């Protein structure tokens, strides 16, 4: 599935849909979720104060491990050190947090911006486990980003909200009146209509 291969916005008046499409694409690019979204279908019915959105995500992004963004090698053998050299600083805070939790602050020494030494008991055993250590789960932030996108995109007064993320399928319905089950039902139908192919 290509990013944003289906991007449909429907309203009664076509010009309004066009305007809303532009708002949504701005929000999507602001949040940097364009690559995660495969298909998106939005129907807005201002007369009923109703905003419905169905999204199909492009496969779930893989877990990020230490070896994905850093080189892990044997450091000073006399001091029992493993050296981690970062290629990408983006995940440094998450990595440090995980290392501190496992080895303790005293044993994790950050020599400079991109180098971290870890003092361990058994170099050979730990080097593998550091390499494979899961550092960051993009899925965790994706849901919050999707909800943020939906809330920013929907008209502000629509504060009664329903959202569900089921595997790769995300549904969001918002209104300013009490939620009707058929609206959520319609959301599921919208999702069906962009599935397949």
């Amino acid at each position, binding site marked *: 599935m290509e990013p944003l291969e289906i991007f449909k916005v429907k*309203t009664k*008046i076509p*010009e*309004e849909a066009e*305007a*809303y499409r*532009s*708002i949504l694409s*701005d*929000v999507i690019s*602001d949040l940097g979720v364009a690559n995660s979204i495969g298909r998106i279908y939005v129907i*807005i019915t*201002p*007369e009923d*104060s109703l905003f419905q959105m169905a999204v199909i995500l492009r496969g779930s992004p893989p877990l990020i491990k230490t070896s994905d963004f850093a080189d892990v090698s044997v450091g000073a053998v006399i001091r029992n050190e493993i050296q981690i050299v970062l290629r990408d600083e983006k995940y440094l805070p998450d990595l440090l947090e995980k290392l501190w939790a496992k080895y303790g602050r005293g044993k994790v020494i950050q020599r400079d911006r991109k180098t971290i030494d870890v003092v361990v008991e058994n170099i050979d055993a730990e080097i593998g486990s550091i390499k494979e250590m899961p550092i960051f789960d993009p899925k965790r932030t994706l849901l919050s980003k999707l909800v943020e996108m939906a809330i*920013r995109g929907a*008209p*502000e*007064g*629509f*504060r009664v909200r329903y959202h569900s993320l089921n595997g790769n399928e995300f549904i969001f319905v918002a209104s*300013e*009146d009490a939620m009707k089950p058929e609206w959520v039902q319609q959301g599921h139908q919208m999702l069906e209509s962009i599935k397949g192919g």
Partner: protein
Amino acid sequence: MAAVLEPYIYEGGIHRHTLILELLEDLGGYLIQKTPAATEVTLVMLVPRDDVHLIEQLAKDLLGKISKAALTGTEIAVVSPTLASHHLPHSACDIAEFLRRGGANTTMIGLARGMGRRVALSADYERRLINEHDIALFSFGTFQDCIINKKPKLFEGIKIPIVVTGGPDLKTEEIPGADMYIGNIGRVAHRLRHSDELGGLDLMSEKVGIIVEKMREDIARDPLAVLPARVMKEVQEQIPEIESVYTPAPLTLQLDGLRIKLPYPDFHKRVEDMELQDNIRLKDVATISLSKMKNYILVKVKRRSEVGIEI
């Protein structure tokens, strides 16, 4: 009646700009606002109509730019339904920016509960604050149905002219309570910088200018007892404390008055007793009250028919 004054904006280098100020003073014009920015300065001023060519010539000599600014001396409230990211900063702030380029002073007002359709409402305090301005500009969104059927309830209790901006192309008559509708400036999530968007903003500024012109004509039929610009000058001369007020536009002109950004409890007596001319004090020709904006002083000048004096 004093000479007819015309509003102009001078933009140029800060070097030797005082020559303009000196000339303006000699001609009997008024400096309304001076905004220095690094090596540039922007002067908003009222120039006597017959002497405009003198100022233009001097501006040319100083390699500055002079342009007519129809909105000078007005204070416009730019009202957005709420302060949330849905309504601000884009479009509303760009609208305000373009009004300021036209010479107006703007106040951005985000209502507490203006969002939505059925649930939208405004508070008494907000309405009173908006009513202190010359014009209220409501910045609305994309949907025709909302703008025509739901949002006009926010206009209730607004006594000043109402300008509405929104996305769809509508006629002013379709929106109950609005004095002017300007389309193609709806909700956007980016800064307005495409040529058609900028064109829409220019048109907006122009149309607001038409309303201001109409209001000026209305006032001219029964003129103000004293020009607000004159009161402004008297404040600068008689209340030196205004020099140490650091808000932008410490004296904000309106079509029929001005806002003095000094605390009301400490200064209102002195403002009221300011002598304008031979024993005529400001309180004789204007109502001075506590503004809804912070604790500033709001001066509304009375009409000639009401007080029988014209200074």
